[in-house]
């Protein structure tokens, strides 16, 4: 009779395959060690990540994705300087999967690396671990010449959600690179401060539409009464994606004074935008906006019809 479940092999027994003369045999040993999901495999995988064959090293870097902790992080950080680009990439990806804050101990020293790839990968790896010690090197990295480093640094600061980093994030919101500005504005969502609001409102006038979209989106979380006027201006943005986020944020902020500006947008030919406008008009429930919703209760798009009917119900009869 065929066994329904494979019997688990002893880790030491599986690791014997790492001594195979053929790289293929060593790769299979790495795969078996990863499949074991046993933390006892970590030291063997840490050894395999320094194998003479790049294929084995890459497989070991990928295999370490399934593990966590300081030993895993140390092996992956070591592989960031590998001579083979595929190994480096695999190690960088696995680093971002770490969840144990203790793993940060092995990553923190890499935050002072002079190598762009190592620094970017280390910042990306420590981001979700929320280690407060990363704040200082991340703030320093905001002035790095490589935009990939600056984007990763903004990510670290954004995850730490520390008000002391507010000035650094606001400064990054006026970075020369659009993707850095976008990341900084998205990261500002945790703060309710006037300075953050001002930076987000200024972001609505950015030259890059994705930055404007990020500003409009984030104002839903951290915007205040002073954000309503810039968001109403953003309703006339050239990009519907920005207009859509602005409508959504005005709804979240409960900006009833914006209802009469949102109403005419029901005439726009983009169904996603009409759907959002109808939902927000329902949330704001301003009786005078019935006139904008009534003609669309039989809209050609079923999602728009659904939201229009819901909004009309919420606003109530004339």
């Amino acid at each position, binding site marked *: 009779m065929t066994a329904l479940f494979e019997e688990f092999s002893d880790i030491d027994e599986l690791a014997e395959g790492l001594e*195979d003369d*053929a*790289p*293929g*045999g060593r*790769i*299979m040993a*790495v*795969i078996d060690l990863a499949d074991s999901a046993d933390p006892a495999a970590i030291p063997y995988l840490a050894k395999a990540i320094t194998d003479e064959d790049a*294929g084995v090293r890459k*497989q070991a870097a990928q295999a370490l994705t399934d593990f966590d902790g300081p030993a895993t992080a140390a092996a992956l950080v070591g592989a960031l300087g590998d001579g083979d680009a595929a190994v480096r990439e695999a190690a960088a990806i696995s680093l971002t999967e770490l969840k144990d804050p203790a793993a940060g101990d092995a990553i923190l020293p890499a935050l002072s690396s002079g190598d762009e790839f190592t620094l970017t990968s280390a910042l990306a790896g420590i981001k979700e671990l929320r280690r407060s010690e990363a704040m200082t090197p991340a703030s320093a990295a905001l002035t790095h010449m490589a935009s990939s480093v600056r984007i990763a640094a903004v990510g670290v600061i954004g995850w730490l959600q520390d008000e002391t980093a507010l000035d650094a994030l606001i400064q990054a919101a006026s970075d020369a690179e659009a993707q850095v500005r976008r990341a900084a504005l998205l990261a500002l969502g945790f703060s309710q401060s006037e300075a953050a609001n001002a930076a987000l409102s200024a972001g609505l006038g950015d030259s890059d539409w994705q930055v404007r979209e990020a500003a409009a989106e984030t104002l839903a979380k951290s915007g205040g009464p002073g954000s309503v006027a810039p968001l109403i201006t953003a309703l006339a943005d050239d990009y519907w994606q920005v207009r859509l986020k602005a409508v959504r944020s005005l709804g979240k902020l409960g900006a009833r004074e914006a209802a009469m500006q949102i109403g005419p947008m029901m005439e726009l030919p983009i169904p996603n935008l009409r759907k959002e406008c109808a939902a927000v008009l329902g949330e704001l429930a301003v009786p005078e906006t019935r006139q904008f919703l009534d003609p669309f209760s039989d809209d050609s798009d079923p999602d728009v019809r659904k939201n229009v009917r819901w909004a009309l119900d919420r606003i109530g009869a004339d």
Partner: protein
Amino acid sequence: MPLAHTATSVPVTIDDEKCIADKGCTVCVDVCPLDVLRIADLADGSKTAYMKYDECWYCQPCEADCPTGAVTVTIPYLLK
């Protein structure tokens, strides 16, 4: 003119030199959602993966996950 009653090529091809099926690897067979790959015993006693059924959806995890880069998925021109 050659007749096309029998397929002369398949979308998933395996480089026998790189394939480590004889070491016990079955990654491509395991990840294929349509279960069209198999391991073949070659005449020289070694093993290699091959495409047994021509039902490929060109989803490519076999190529992406192969630990030695032995698998190539050729996507038809009209699908590119």
